[in-house]
């Protein structure tokens, strides 16, 4: 351990640690989230055999879908060396607008299906637009993305309260009835949100690992100067990352609205922290430059599983959910630290 730290401190150009240790540390970092996930499943199963029932598992997956989808977008933002704190408030804002649009169109005589589809489209448009705003402010506006999204978080959140007039916006029951299947139906015995999550993960993974855009994201996050001198339009890449994030938030919201059928100023509270946690637990470096989409999903599943296990058993109080999550975050950070070379 000491010699590994010495390597960091001395910035020597050659590897100094034993190959065995390096391989182990690297493996632990790569597979860390998967190992943690398996451990949680084992713990869950040993505490309550119902844990592995299809019902419970599909419940866990479905509930992970929101944070999971958002964290795919979050992976891109974080890999490019930025952060988006506005996603929770953005989701609430999108949900509010969707409800308003759907209710209005349904009342003005549109067919319910058409109203729902129009609402969904408007949700996606708002999500993309919100991403553009965040991206432009963080690049052309030359404001740090942390501050930009801190600001837009406040704006989105307050707009929700404003349009809901301080209360709750509720989907008309006939619209909700038409929209319900999007969250509650299954295809091949797998809930729709899980399908959506799977598709998003696959597309996200391919985009990050196999495309020029993904390569550029990593380059920009590692060293934006080098990217600039490599003829990469750094500003574009950063804006696109925010747009991807906005799109993912909108997609998650499309699935969330039919679940509760309402939106209020408490919708999506702390989602940004859960999404960032999922990304970091999944092995993406918070300082940017490297990351993986599947890791973020593993992170999201870990977070949901902890809550689920605490609910199924009574050994640890459910109120300690946050503490257990915190320990997992710290554990992930420790793993990342020990295998980081210069």
């Amino acid at each position, binding site marked *: 351990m000491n010699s590994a730290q010495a390597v960091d401190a001395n910035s020597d150009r*050659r*590897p100094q640690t034993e190959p065995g240790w390096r391989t182990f540390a690297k493996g632990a970092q790569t597979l860390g989230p998967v190992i943690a996930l398996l451990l949680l499943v084992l713990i869950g199963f040993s505490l309550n055999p119902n844990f592995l029932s299809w019902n419970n598992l599909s419940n866990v997956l479905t509930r992970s879908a929101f944070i999971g989808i958002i964290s795919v977008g979050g992976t891109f933002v974080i890999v490019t060396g930025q952060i988006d704190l506005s996603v929770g408030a953005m989701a609430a804002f999108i949900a509010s607008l969707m409800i308003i649009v759907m209710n209005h169109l349904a009342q003005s005589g549109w067919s319910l299906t058409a109203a729902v589809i129009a609402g969904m489209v408007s949700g996606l448009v708002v999500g993309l637009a919100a991403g553009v705003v965040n991206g432009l402010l963080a690049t052309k506006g030359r404001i740090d993305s942390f501050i930009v999204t801190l600001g837009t978080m406040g704006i989105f959140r307050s707009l929700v309260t404003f349009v809901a007039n301080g209360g709750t916006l509720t989907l008309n029951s006939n619209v909700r009835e038409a929209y319900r299947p999007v969250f509650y139906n299954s295809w091949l015995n797998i809930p729709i949100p899980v399908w959506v999550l799977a598709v998003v993960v696959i597309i996200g993974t391919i985009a990050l690992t196999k495309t*020029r855009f993904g390569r550029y994201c990593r380059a920009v996050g590692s*060293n934006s100067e080098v990217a600039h*001198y*490599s003829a990469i339009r750094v500003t574009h890449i950063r804006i696109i990352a925010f747009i991807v994030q906005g799109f993912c938030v909108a997609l998650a919201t499309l699935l969330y609205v039919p679940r509760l059928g309402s939106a209020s100023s408490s919708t999506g509270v702390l989602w940004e922290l859960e999404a960032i946690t999922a990304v970091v637990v999944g092995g993406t470096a918070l300082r940017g430059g490297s990351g993986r989409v599947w890791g973020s999903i593993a992170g999201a599943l870990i977070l949901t599983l902890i809550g689920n296990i605490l609910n199924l058993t009574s050994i640890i109080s459910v109120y300690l959910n946050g503490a257990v999550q915190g320990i997992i975050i710290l554990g992930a950070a420790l793993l990342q630290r020990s295998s980081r070379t210069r």
Partner: protein
Amino acid sequence: MPGMEVCTPSMPPDIQSSPEPAASGAEAVEFGTLGGQEISKSFGPVAVLKSITLSFLPGRIHAIVGENGAGKSTFVKILAGIIKPSSGQIFFRGKQVENPTLRLMEDLGVRLIHQELNLANDLTVLENIFLGREAVKGPFLDEAPMRRKAREVLARVGANVDLDRKVGDLRISEKQLTEIAKALAQEATVLILDEPTAVLTQREADRLFQIIEQFAKAGVAIIYISHRLEEVKRLAHHITVLRDGQLVATRNAGEISPDEIVRLMVGRSLQDLFPKKAYSRDQKNVMEVRNLSVPGHVTDASFGLKKGEILGFAGLVGAGRTELFEGIMGLRSISSGTIFRDGKQVKFSDYPHALRAFRAAYLPEDRKGKGLVVSFDARTNYSLLALQRFGACFVNQATERASFLNAVERFQIKIPDRSMPVSRLSGGNQQKVVLAKIFAIDPEIIVFDEPTRGIDVGTKAQIYRLIAAMAAEGKSCVVISSELLEIIGLCHRVIVMRASRIVASLEGDEISEDEIMMYATGVKQAHLS
């Protein structure tokens, strides 16, 4: 505080009185201020130092030369206690140092001035100089004596910098001098300088040599690592040549010629360094720049670049050469000026545009800061500029890998493990990766900004041949360099810049060290042929 006295080394009288040094051999280790006996170091299976025995005498300047990767930096890092040797002992004034750590060696007065600057950019000059060794009064910092001391050491190294400026805002040469001042703020018995002049102008370097000589006179043992043979020859009493981790020779400086040093280092002579200049003058301009200005850096620059030409840009650091070409390439905004490409007026809106539409590429001077993503592997770095070639949306990794392997062969890049980050490659191999990256887009105009900074003689010769071959193929090359030898040996035509203006354009016999320096320093005023 006790360590505040600047360099008052106490010398063991017996050593002071023995003027004739036997600088090599196991028996000498006990006599020097600092010595290493049979020092070996392996990183994994790679042996980088093979049983080196060398001792350093008080009052003597001992240069260590060798190609990059020869083990010079590793050796001095071991002496300074930064790296542990795999085997061998370190002696200080005749006594073996048990378990040498950085702290222990620092307490013995061994000061290493790093090749990569080790300063905290967000702290001020004053804070950096005393970092970790602050003077205190009770729980509070004692500012006054630190300021006095800092001013004194900065004056000693000839640095005119404000104590309260952030180091991040300093020019790189000022940072270097601050680093030296930091090392001198405490008592020194051994001063190790690893490539200290790489970022200094000639004047600053001259000043540094005076300081080094003063220290030597005061009895400090100096270990000096450099690529620049002229300065080694001028400064050092003893010269040790390392090659592939082995000590090839240690000689008194008077007994060895630069040619012999080069031969010992690489097994080739200086004349072979530069390829023959072959160039026919009657070519058309492929690019012409008129009245280009970059705010704060370049005023009203006009010049033409011909097909197949190697055009040198000489001048002091800060004369505006880099900024001129960054302006042309769209990497930096310009306030006025027009660019003609093959006779047609064009506008490079940004670098990607210049690169793709006009086939003009720029090799940045700062390898680690601008050229390479040091955490990426070599292949990913190689393809970053030309990634479009390997697919519009999806990267075709098979083609990419094949192209990379091709480049590895063509540029003779030595990469022990393809998955390792380029930060672990030697400077010369890193530079080859950057060159390969630029050539991957097959540019017609290539601007090389300090193409051989901090790399070994062997790789230099290789890069010179490469540039000459490019020009022979009809590509146009611009070489911005602070090494006059390089400008003179390589370029067909030389433009000199001084204080943000182009002051001379020299051809043929006009290209000489004296002539260039007179324009660069303003002794001769503007002359444009």
